[in-house]
């Protein structure tokens, strides 16, 4: 096995996914098959090879640090799942 049920549980926590028991057991099998396939990369010796960084030359453009968009709180709050006036309302963080 490339990945165990306990590891799937740990990764699900890192990824902030609840996952049902059924999802977890199915994912363990599927991820195992996929990781098995990924093993073919180990056929290659890459000791002398540097990791890829970018496809094309990046352009480093400087610009003045000025506000270009008008503030529009109403437009930004319009998609809020829950709000209170001009605030996003979120679940309690501290007891």
């Amino acid at each position, binding site marked *: 096995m490339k*990945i165990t049920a306990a*590891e*799937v549980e*740990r*990764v*699900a926590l*890192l*990824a*902030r*996914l*609840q*996952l*049902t028991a059924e*999802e977890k057991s199915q*994912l363990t099998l*599927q*991820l195992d*098959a*996929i*990781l098995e*396939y*990924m093993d*073919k*990369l*180990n056929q*290659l010796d*890459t000791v002398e*090879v*540097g*990791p*890829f960084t*970018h*496809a*094309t*030359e*990046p*352009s*480093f*453009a400087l*610009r003045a640090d000025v506000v270009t968009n008008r503030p*529009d709180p109403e*437009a*930004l709050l*319009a*998609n*809020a*799942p*829950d709000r209170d006036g001009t605030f*996003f309302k*979120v*679940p*309690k*963080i501290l007891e």
Partner: protein
Amino acid sequence: MSLAALTIHQAGEKLRRREITSVELTAAVFQRIDQTDDRIRAYITLAKEAALEQARRADQQLMRNEMASPLLGIPLALKDNFLTRGLRTTCASKILGDFIPPYDATTVQKLRHAGAVFSGKTNLDEFAMGSSAENSAFFPTRNPWNLQRIPGGSSGGSAAAVAADECIAALGTDTGGSIRQPAACCGVVGLKPTYGRVSRYGIIAFASSMDQVGPLTKDVRDAALLLEAIAGHDPADSTSASRPVPKYSEVLNREVKGLRVGVPKEYFVPGMQPLVAKATRDAIRSLANQGAQIEDVGLPYTEYAVAVYYIVATAEASSNLARYDGMRYGYRAKANDLNETYRISRDEGFGAEVKRRIMLGTYALSAGYYDAYYLKAQKVRTLIKRDFDEAFKRCDVIVTPTAPTTAFKLGEKIQDPLQMYLSDIYTISINLAGLPALSLPCGFDGDGLPIGMQIIGKPFDEATILRVAHAYEQATEWHMKKPRIEDG
């Protein structure tokens, strides 16, 4: 023939000669949608009222001869991962089911300035993750050539809408083949530009080192016209290139005599559909007949591309999709505390494939596995890029099949994620290397399904790709064939 069947350049000519109006053209597109989209289901959201208003404005500008843009008054469809101000944008996900963007993607903004009309938002695999459009949280789209077949993915809705004449042309995005493979499946032209050629600002991010915007069109000239309109540097996307944008549509007619066409043996392998290989080889012969010089080239690291891609793309996706936390926008589940709110919102909001990729990417980046998977994959990615650098010393373009098979049946691969991933085998290396590539029709299989060939170019050399594609298209009639859409 319905006006909806026209290309951008054909419709544009009629508009400028005042033979038709944009309102008539737009109405014809919506009439076609009414007739066929109950079976194809290319669109998630239609924007008929807004489109007719844009068409009326375009007609006024046409009357006053105000603007010379070839897109003025032309109805275009947008994949539903382009942010459109005021128009619902779902990314085919429940987590963004009601999302109304407060701003436009740069490409959408550019098309608005060019006077384009937006017919609506097209279906895709959720978050552009998939090769069949079956991963949409809402419904699958069907192939206009055969309703039992997939349209390809992830830009399946855009490709199907173009093939079915439910728009004049469309935009899609391509991270591992998501423009080219559906273009091949639906018998249309699809172009993925060089990484950095087109701004990604306002495109819902999937894998940021590979995502790129491009056109899906009825012919090569339209692809050139659309690319001209959307390409160029954008201060809001630091990875967009500041190179000048050539007039692609003006170099199409140059002949291909003397151009060197590379053919990699690694792209013609056992297991691929024999007629796909034959159609591609016939197309290469047609280019040779026009004076192109055919060169054998090697791309020996091709067989590792799928493994590299599904590590790099999922790693980037797991990071990009961390923003969907149900706090400022998007779906929020009822739960007892903050952590549970995150976890249940994401579990209920994302579909199976998206969760699978988030899990794979999180695993590949997690402590203890980073070197073995992510770092290893980025090293092999360097080798894949070097393959192309070497090959392009000996040729100007590389021609391959776009996909190993024609459109498969709905449901055929959905239970087997690895098999689904392998259907991207010919397209993903190009994203890993950041190169431009185009798919165009080059024949049909025994079931009457379209076959696509892929033309890959050097970085920022879309002009040569388009020129080769145009030369082939002019010598053949595949692009004139239209599907006859079956009754449901």
